[in-house]
Every structure is written in structure tokens, then in C-alpha cells.
């Protein structure tokens, strides 16, 4: 196995529900090696999104860490202050969210919002930033990037928005990208193209990408490693071919049957 990029050890997230504690992520161990595509597969409510966003230390209100460590770049993210986390988010770990119509602020242009990330994390001057934005958009497969960068989010199609979102995620050259259901709102052909883009970017930028998805078929197409989650636990993890061809856990078998692979 290659050098681990991010390591999650004995990690548990809980939430208080009517003064009864529910554990959403249950004592999970996960090691993600560098420069790979890791798919986190599971049904709805399996805790995969919570686990994914934990790596950015983003928790929806009410959630809290019960236990564990997330080691990234030699540091335990869970112990870092909010201020230190701000330097890691976007700069070291980027994120691609599910629905880019909601994740872009409707009152600013696409270019403006990508530039915002650069403004936060780099010392580039304004003209250089704008150039960089256009380059990032072209890198994410948007033709006519200059025009698109002056568009507002609602003026773009779903596929375009997702590409722009990816451009925003890679803007500050992070090592790791966490993509939460990046293609679930797109049609099949667009989905395939976006996945191609991910593969492409991984090779070009030496990225590690964690894709959170419910679609095992998607994971098969793109992932080097797969972890299957059920009810907050990782029931099976390993190289994609191993998990897909000889699944050990009952739930993995069920998933494979259901997705008709």
C-alpha cells in the first residue's frame, strides 16, 4: 500500500436526539493512500457524508465528535483550532458538493466565487487571479472559460456548474478532494464525463479524491479503493477489484447484486 495521505482512527460521531445519544459514525478506521480515487459507498443514512465532511471538520449543527483521530499531514485535524482549519480547508483539502446550484452563491458570478478561494489562500494579485480562474475553468473542461466566468450560477447548466464547482475545489491546489455525491444530479452521459474529469485531474495534479456515493457502479468505473458503509460502520474496505469480485460482507454482496454488476 502507498503512503497514507489521511488516516481515520477509531472515529465516532454522535448526536443528541431527545437526550438519547445516537451514534452516526461508529468507531471507523479508514486509511486513504495518496494519489488514488477512494470511493465511500453506502445507502442513505449510512453516515458516509458525515464521515466525508468530518475530514474537513465540517459538522452539521448538533453533531459532535465522540472519539478518534483524523491524521492529515502529520496533524490530528480534530485537535486543530477553527482558525487553523480555515487554512486547511480549500488549501489542503478541497470539497465538491452535491448540488452546485445550491453551493454557488446566486448573487456572485462563477468567476468571482472561484477567485474568492484564491483570494483567501494565495497572495496573487487581482489580474493574476482572474487569469488563474480562467485557467482553472479550462482545466475543468469548460470551453469559453472567459465568458463563463462572468456568468451567474443560474445561467449555467447542471454539468457546467459541476465543472465550475470542481474548478473551485482545485483552485488552491489541494492534495485531497472530497466529493460528496458529485454526479447524483446529472444524467448518465454527463456523469461519465465528470468522472473522466476526475481521473484526468488526479493524473495532472497528483490529487487524491474521495468520492462519496451510493452508486456502486460509479465506484467500479472510477475507484482504486472502495469502502462500503452501513449504519455508520465500514463493513468492508479494500482495493476496488477485491471488494467487487469477492465481497465478504453480506451487505456488499447485496449492493453488488442490486447494482447489477
Amino acid at each position, binding site marked *: 500500500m502507498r503512503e497514507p495521505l489521511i488516516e481515520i482512527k477509531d472515529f465516532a460521531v454522535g448526536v443528541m436526539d431527545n437526550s438519547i445519544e445516537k451514534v452516526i459514525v461508529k468507531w471507523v478506521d479508514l486509511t486513504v493512500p495518496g494519489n488514488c480515487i477512494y470511493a465511500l459507498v453506502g445507502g442513505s443514512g449510512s453516515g458516509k457524508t458525515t464521515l466525508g465532511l468530518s475530514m474537513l471538520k465540517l459538522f452539521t449543527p448538533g453533531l459532535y465528535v465522540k472519539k478518534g483521530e483524523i491524521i492529515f499531514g502529520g496533524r490530528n485535524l480534530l485537535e486543530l483550532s477553527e482558525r487553523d482549519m*480555515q*487554512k486547511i480547508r480549500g488549501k489542503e483539502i478541497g470539497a465538491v*458538493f452535491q448540488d452546485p446550484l445550491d*453551493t454557488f452563491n446566486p448573487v456572485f458570478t462563477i468567476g468571482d466565487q472561484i477567485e474568492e478561494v484564491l483570494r483567501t489562500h494565495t497572495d496573487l494579485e487581482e489580474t493574476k487571479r482572474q487569469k488563474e480562474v480562467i485557467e482553472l475553468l479550462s482545466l475543468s473542461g469548460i470551453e469559453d472559460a472567459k465568458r463563463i466566468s462572468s456568468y451567474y450560477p443560474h445561467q449555467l447548466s447542471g454539468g457546467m456548474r459541476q465543472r465550475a464547482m470542481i474548478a473551485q475545489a482545485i483552485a488552491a491546489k489541494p492534495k485531497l478532494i472530497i466529493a460528496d455525491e458529485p454526479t447524483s444530479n446529472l444524467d448518465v452521459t454527463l456523469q461519465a464525463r465528470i468522472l473522466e474529469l476526475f481521473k484526468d485531474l488526479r493524473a495532472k495534479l497528483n490529487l487524491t479524491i474521495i468520492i462519496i456515493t451510493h452508486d456502486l457502479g460509479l465506484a467500479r468505473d472510477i475507484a482504486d479503493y472502495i469502502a462500503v458503509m452501513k449504519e455508520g460502520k465500514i463493513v468492508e474496505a479494500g482495493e476496488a477489484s477485491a471488494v467487487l469480485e469477492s465481497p465478504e460482507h453480506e451487505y456488499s454482496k447485496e449492493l453488488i447484486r442490486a447494482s447489477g454488476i
Partner: protein
Amino acid sequence: MSRNQEIKHQSELQIALNGFKRNKIAVGCLILLSVLYLSAIFADFISPYSYDNEDRNYSYCPPTLLSIKHDGKFVYPYISGRELTFNDYRQRIYKIDQTKRYPIKFMVKGDKYKLLGFIKCRYHLFGVDAPGRIYLFGADSRGRDIFSRTMYGGRVSLSIGLIGVLISFGLGLLVGGISGYYGGRIDNFIMRLCEMFMMIPGFYLLLALRAAVPDNFNSVQVYFAIILILSFIGWASLARIIRGMALTLREREYVLAAKGFGLSDFNIIVRHVLPHTLSYSIFAVMLSIPGYILGESALSLIGLGIQDPFASWGNLLSDAMSIIKIKFAPWILFPAIFIFLTVICFNVIGEALRDCLDPMMKQERKR
């Protein structure tokens, strides 16, 4: 096809502006308001006299009427001379003296002033040659031109509204944004603080705060003190509403995304939360400006605001507090018309902006 594209590229703002333009009354009000503001900016040029130019021979002189007829013939507009006499009850009577005629002149040399604060100038838009005096709105007790003083007073009264609203809205937006964005204990603390401010009746708080200001302040200091006092009272209610909006806005996906990209909380509040409250804030600003103008007028009216000889609309009206004066010199109420017009204009514009900025209202109107 090209037409379709044009429509597509209309921004929300343009759509709102078009909606606003359709409201003819509001456009009229906007024009009137612009005229009022321009007249305040160029007050020293438009008014024939300086605010403290007095002539006690003309105490409570009624408004001078422009005459264009003399001996049954049309002539160049002029004003007649006036002579002060007293009737049996020792009341002032100004008799029109037809033998003295002062034609209206433009670009008259008069009191020195600095146009826009830096151009030295002594020309006034109109006036008459001395010893004649032109009183469009009549004169006050010391024979000062109420028209001139109203123009000068507009500077104080109109600017206090704008500056006051700027300060209190800046404060309200920021405090409300912080309160709503962080939630929890910070929110609780800030909101209880706001309620403490809102609990005290506004006018009494105004008086109490004014009492806290040293009474040896000069007029400029008093001016800024009043602005601060007014904005100090105004921010709380806005902060509450913005806080409510921020509470829902912080749940938006793009706020989470912005956080995920490492933006600081302050940046997120300013760039990703507050802009969405803007359509509400804009008309709320418009609708709250009259409050500041009236607040200043109220303070000046009871003698706690701008002091004589400096003029503000409220200060000018303080002369009109006794019924006898109003009865014999009703023209001292002219500044009240200006306050009235300004307040109406801001309200109409505010309502019109609400109609065109608030999508919910739009649907209701269609129904």
C-alpha cells in the same frame, strides 16, 4: 432570438428598476427628493441670504409676492418695498409701498460663502438690490429670510437621515448577521441586548441620551451627537430582522461550501449571508429615513438639537410652537411642508421599492 437573449441578460436589479419606473408616483417622489437634496447641497447659492443675515426692521415680514403688473401694464417681475407700521393694538402691519420697486435680479452679489465647501463665491441665484429684501417664505422674528433658512436647514435635516441610517444599518446588519450566523449563546446575548434597547420608548431614550451629551458642544458637535444618538436607537430592530434572515441563510449549502473552502466567518457573513438580506434592507432603509428626520426635528423643536442661529427644519419650527405666532405669521410653518414632503417621498419610494424587490408582494399583486 436576439430579443430573447436581451431578456435573459436582465439582472434582478434591472427587473426591479423597471418595476420601479412603472410606479409613476414613486418616480415623481424620487425627482422631488432629488430636487430637495440638490437644493440642500447648493443652499448657499440658491438662497438669497445667508442663514444668519438678519434685518430687524422686517421682523415677521409676510412673504413678498412677485408682481408683474404695474399701472395696468405687464412689466419685468419686481417686488414692492414694504414699510413697517403698527396698528391700534401695536401689531406689526407691513404696508406695501408701490413707489419703491425692486426688480428681481439673477446672479446677485451678496453674502460670501464657499460653494460645495471650497469654491469661494458671493453670487446668489436670485435676489434684489438693497435696501429691498426678498422674502419668498416671509421672515422670522429677527427678519431673517425663512426661505434661505429652510434651504440651509435642509442640509442638516436631510443629511442626518442619510448618515444616521448608514451608521445604524451598518451596525444592524453586522450585529444581526453575527447573531444569526453563530446562533446559540452569542445569539441569545445579542438578542436580549437588542430587546433592552427596543424596550425603552424611542423618544424618551432620545431625550435621555441627549441629556448625556455635554451642553457646551458647538453646533457641529451637536450635529454629530444627534446622528450618533439616532443611530444608536435605530439599529436594534433591524438587527433582529437580519438575525432572523441570517438564521435561515446560514443553513444554505453555499454557506457550508464557503466554509469548506476555508473562508473566515467574517467573510462568510459579509459575502454569503448579508447580500441576501439586501432586497429587504434597501426598502427598510428607505422606510426608516423619515424616522431620523423626524427625530432630529423633534429634538431641535424642543430646543435640544441644532441651536440658533444655525438652521434645521425642526429648529425653524421651534419658533412656531405658540398659537399666537402661527396666527399672525403662519408662514413660519413653511419648513413643516418640507419635512412633510420629504417624509412622504421617502415612504412612497420605500413602498415602491418593496413592491418591486420583494417577490412575494409581486405575486400578491398579480392575484
